[in-house]
C-alpha cells in the first residue's frame, strides 16, 4: 500500500519533471487561445454582452466556465500556479547541483583519449611537470582546469589535466528560470496592487486622484480607495490636435497643470500619445479626445441657461453624439431635452443630414433634435449623460445650428413655445487614464535578466578537454602529450575550436613558455 507520503513524493516528482513542464506549457498556450478569440470582459464588456445576447445557452455556458475572463479564470490561474510550483521544484535541485559542480574539479580524463571525437597527440621535450604547468597556463583564462596524478602500477606516474568550459550556460539557464519564477510572482502581485482609472476632462478645471471622480476604475484586490496616491491634475489648459495636409493626424497634445502631495506647487507638463505624465508611482495617459458643444437656451420668460456637454465620437472623423437635459425649461415647467450630433467638419448628405468629413474643426455644425416632456431624471434610475431618455418626451423641433465667424452663434432655433436654442461654441475634452502598478519597475529588471539568462543559456556551449602527459622514452627527455575533447552541447564548430586550442598547446609546449625559469630550453628540432 502506498503511504500518503509516498504518493505526495511521487506526485511532486511528476510535477517537477521536464515532461510535466512541457505539458503545462502546452496547457498555458492552449488556455490563452479562447482569450483572444472570445470577447473578454476586462477588455470590452459591451462586446461580451452582445455575444451573450446572440448566443443563448451556449453563451451562458461559456460564461459559467469563465471563457469571457480567461486570464482571471480558475483554470488559467491553476495552470499558472502549477507551472510556478513545477519551476520551483525543478530549480531547487538544479541550483544545488550547479553549486556543487562549480566547486568540484572537472572530471577525470577517460582512459582512452584517442577514442574521443576530437583527439590528437604530439611530443615535447619538456618534462611532464613543466609541460603540465604550460598547458594549464595556456588553458587558464577560459578553461577551468585541474591537475591529477595518475599512478601507474609499472613505470612513472602520468599527469592528466581535465578542463571544462561553458559553465555560464547552466548559470544563464538558471538565471532565466529563476527570473521567470520571480516574474510570475511580480505579475500576480501587480494584479493585486495596481489600479487604473479613466476620466473625461473638459478644457478647464481638472480633478484630484480620488475614487469618485473616475468614470471607470479598476482596483486591484489589495488596493483600498483611501490609499490612492495624492495628486491633482488641476487644469487642462489646452488640447491641440494637429493634422497633416492629407488629413491624417500628426500629433495630440494635452497641456496640463498638476500638483503632487497635499499642497504641492503647481507644475506643468504636456502629455502626448506615447508620452505620459509620470508622477511618483502614478502615470497619467492621454487616451482619447473629443468635442463638447455649448448651447444657450433662452426661455420666453427671460431666463438664459448655458450648458456645455461632452459628446462621444462615433467614428474616426469625430462625428459625435450627446445630449443636453434642462429640467424645468420646457413649457409649463416640463423638461427640455436635446439630442445632438456634432460634426467638426460637416458634410451635408442632402436633405439636411449631416456627417463629419474630417476630425478637424471647419465651420462645425450641431444638429439638434429638441424634445419636451419628462427627462425621467427624477426617477432615481441612473441614466447615461450621453443620451436622452425620450420615452416620456415628444419631439418639438429639428434643426442644424452653425457657429458664426466671431465665435458666436449664426442661426437660432425657435421652439413652438417661443424658447430659442443657439449653438455658441465648443470645448475640447480628453480622456485621461491614471495607472498605478508598484511592481512594474522590478518586473522590467527581471525581464532584462530573463533575456540575459537566455543569451547565456543558448549561446554558450559546454566543452571538455583533457591533456595526458607521460614520459615517452627511457631517458625521460621526451614527453608524449595526448589531447582529447568532447562537446557536451551542440558540437557546432567544436572541431575548429579544438584545432585552435591544439595549436596553442603545441606552441606553448614547443617554445619556451614564459613562466618557466630561463635557461631551460624547450628544444627546437
Amino acid at each position, binding site marked *: 500500500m502506498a503511504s500518503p507520503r509516498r504518493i505526495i513524493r511521487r506526485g511532486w516528482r511528476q510535477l517537477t519533471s521536464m515532461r510535466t513542464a512541457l505539458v503545462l506549457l502546452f496547457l498555458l498556450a492552449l488556455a490563452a487561445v479562447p*482569450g*483572444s478569440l472570445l470577447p473578454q470582459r476586462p477588455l470590452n464588456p459591451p462586446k461580451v454582452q452582445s455575444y451573450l445576447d446572440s448566443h443563448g445557452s451556449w453563451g451562458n455556458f461559456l460564461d459559467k466556465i469563465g471563457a469571457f475572463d480567461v486570464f482571471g479564470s480558475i483554470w488559467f490561474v491553476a495552470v499558472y500556479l502549477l507551472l510556478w510550483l513545477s519551476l520551483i521544484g525543478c530549480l531547487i535541485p538544479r541550483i544545488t547541483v550547479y553549486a556543487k559542480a562549480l566547486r568540484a574539479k572537472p572530471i577525470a580524463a577517460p582512459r582512452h583519449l584517442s577514442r574521443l571525437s576530437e583527439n590528437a597527440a604530439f611530443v615535447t621535450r619538456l618534462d611532464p611537470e613543466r609541460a603540465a604547468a604550460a598547458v594549464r597556463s595556456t588553458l587558464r583564462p577560459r578553461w577551468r582546469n585541474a591537475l591529477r596524478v595518475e599512478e601507474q602500477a609499472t613505470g612513472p606516474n602520468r599527469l592528466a589535466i581535465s578542463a571544462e568550459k561553458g559553465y555560464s550556460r547552466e548559470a544563464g539557464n538558471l538565471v532565466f528560470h529563476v527570473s521567470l519564477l520571480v516574474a510570475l510572482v511580480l505579475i500576480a502581485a501587480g494584479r493585486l496592487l495596481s489600479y487604473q482609472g479613466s476620466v473625461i476632462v473638459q478644457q478647464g478645471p481638472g480633478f484630484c486622484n480620488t475614487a469618485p471622480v473616475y468614470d471607470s476604475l479598476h482596483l486591484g484586490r489589495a488596493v483600498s480607495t483611501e490609499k490612492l496616491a495624492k495628486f491633482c491634475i488641476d487644469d487642462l489648459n489646452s488640447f491641440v490636435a494637429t493634422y497633416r495636409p492629407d488629413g491624417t493626424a*500628426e500629433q495630440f497634445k494635452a497641456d496640463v497643470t498638476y500638483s503632487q502631495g497635499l499642497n504641492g506647487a503647481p507644475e506643468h507638463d504636456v502629455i502626448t500619445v506615447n508620452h505620459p505624465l509620470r508622477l511618483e508611482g502614478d502615470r497619467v495617459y492621454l*487616451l482619447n479626445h473629443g468635442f463638447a458643444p455649448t448651447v444657450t437656451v433662452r426661455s420666453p420668460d427671460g431666463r438664459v441657461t448655458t450648458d456645455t456637454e461632452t459628446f462621444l465620437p462615433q467614428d474616426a472623423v469625430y462625428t459625435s453624439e450627446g445630449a443636453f437635459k434642462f429640467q424645468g425649461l420646457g413649457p409649463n415647467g416640463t423638461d427640455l431635452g436635446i439630442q445632438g450630433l456634432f460634426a467638426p467638419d460637416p458634410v451635408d448628405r442632402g436633405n439636411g443630414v449631416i456627417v463629419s468629413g474630417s476630425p478637424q474643426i471647419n465651420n462645425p455644425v450641431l444638429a439638434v433634435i429638441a424634445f419636451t416632456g419628462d427627462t425621467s431624471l427624477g426617477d432615481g434610475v441612473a441614466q447615461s449623460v450621453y443620451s436622452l431618455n425620450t420615452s416620456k418626451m415628444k419631439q418639438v423641433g429639428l434643426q442644424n445650428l452653425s457657429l458664426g465667424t466671431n465665435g458666436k452663434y449664426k442661426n437660432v432655433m425657435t421652439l413652438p413655445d417661443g424658447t430659442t436654442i443657439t449653438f455658441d461654441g465648443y470645448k475640447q475634452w480628453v480622456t485621461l487614464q491614471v495607472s498605478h502598478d508598484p511592481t*512594474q519597475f522590478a518586473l522590467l529588471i527581471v525581464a532584462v535578466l530573463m533575456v540575459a539568462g537566455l543569451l547565456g543559456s*543558448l549561446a554558450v556551449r559546454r566543452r571538455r578537454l583533457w591533456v595526458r602527459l607521460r614520459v615517452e622514452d627511457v631517458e625521460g627527455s621526451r614527453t608524449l602529450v595526448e589531447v582529447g575533447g568532447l562537446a557536451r552541447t*551542440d558540437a557546432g564548430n567544436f572541431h575548429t575550436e579544438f584545432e585552435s586550442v591544439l595549436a596553442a598547446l603545441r606552441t606553448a609546449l614547443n617554445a619556451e613558455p614564459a613562466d618557466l625559469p630561463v635557461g631551460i630550453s624547450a628544444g627546437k628540432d
Partner: protein
Amino acid sequence: MAVNTGLAQLSEGLWAAATGMYMLAVVCYTGEYAFGRKGKVASTSPVGRPAMASVSTSVGAGPTTSPTAGGGWSVGAGRIETSRPSGDRWGVLALVLTILGGLIHLSCLVIRGVAVDRVPWGNMYEFTLVVGLIAVVSWLALLIKLPSLRYLGLFVMLPVLLVMFLAGTLYTKATKLVPALQSYWLAIHVSSVATAEGILMVSAAMTILFLIRSRYERVVALSAVSELSAGDGASGAGGSVAVQPDLGRIARLGARLPGSDSLDKAAYRTVAFAFPIYTAGVIFGAIWAEAAWGRYWGWDPKETWAFIAWVIYAMYLHARATAGWKGSRAGYINLLGFAALTFNFFVVNIVISGLHSYAGLN
C-alpha cells in the same frame, strides 16, 4: 515634411525587381535541384550511412556511436564541396541571384524609409517585406555556418517568394505615421520581432525538410534491416533506395535531403538564435504598451498570440532536451510555433480587432 512620392515609387519598383530576382533564383535552385543532385544521391551514399548509423543509434541507444553521427555529417559536407556536379553551376548562380535580390530588397526598404522619413516598418506591407528580407539574410548567414545546405535554397526561397507576393497584396501607400506609432519603440520593438520571425521562418522550412528526411530515414532503416535479413547486403544504402518502390513521393524527396541530424541542427540553431530576440521583442512591446496604453500587458489579442507563440517555442527548446520528445515531435512543435506567429500576423491583424491597429488596412 511630406512623403516623397518619387522615392516611394522607386521603392515600389525595387519591390518588383527584388521579387523578379528571387523568382530567377528559385528557377536556378530548381535547376540545381533537378539536374545537379541527380548524381548527388549516388555520390552521397557514403554520407547516407552515418545518417543511418544515427538512426540506429537512437533506436539502439548505443552511446559510443553518437560522436560519429555528428562527425559523419561534417565529413559529408566536405565531400559535397569537392565533388562538383554540373548542377552546382546552377546553385552558384542561384546564390548570386539571391544575394542580388537581397540587396535590391534592402534598398527597396531603405528608400521607402527615406521617402516617408521614418523606419520602413509601420504597416503590414512594410513589415512583411522586412520579414522576407530577414529570412533571406538569415538563410545566407546559415549557409556560412552550414554551406552544404545550399542546394536546399529552393525550400527557403519559395516561401520568401510567397512572402514577397503577400506583401504585394498587402500593399499600402507610403504614408506618415499616426500619433500612436510615433515612438522610438516602433523602431526597436517591431524590428526585433520582424528579425525573429524572419529567422523562425527559415527554421520552419528546415523543420519541414527535417520531418520529411527523418520519416525517410525510418523507412530506409527498416527496409535495410529487412534486406539484411534477406541476405542482400551488397546493394548498400543507394541501392536500397532504388529498390523501394513503395516509398511515396515524400520519401523520394527525402532521399535527396541531407541527413536529419544536420537539418535538425539547422532548425535548432535558428530557433536558439531567434528565441532570445523574440523574447526581447515581446518585452520591448510590453515597455511600449506601458508608455502608450498605461499597462505593460493587457491580453490584447496581439499580445495573447505573441505569448502563445513564445510559449510554443519554449516548448520546442524543452522538447529537444527531453527524452521521447526529441526528433519529429519537437519538429511538429516548431511548426506549431510558426503557425502561431503566422496566425498572429494575418488573422489577428486582419480579422480580430484589437489595440494593435497598425495593419494599415482599416
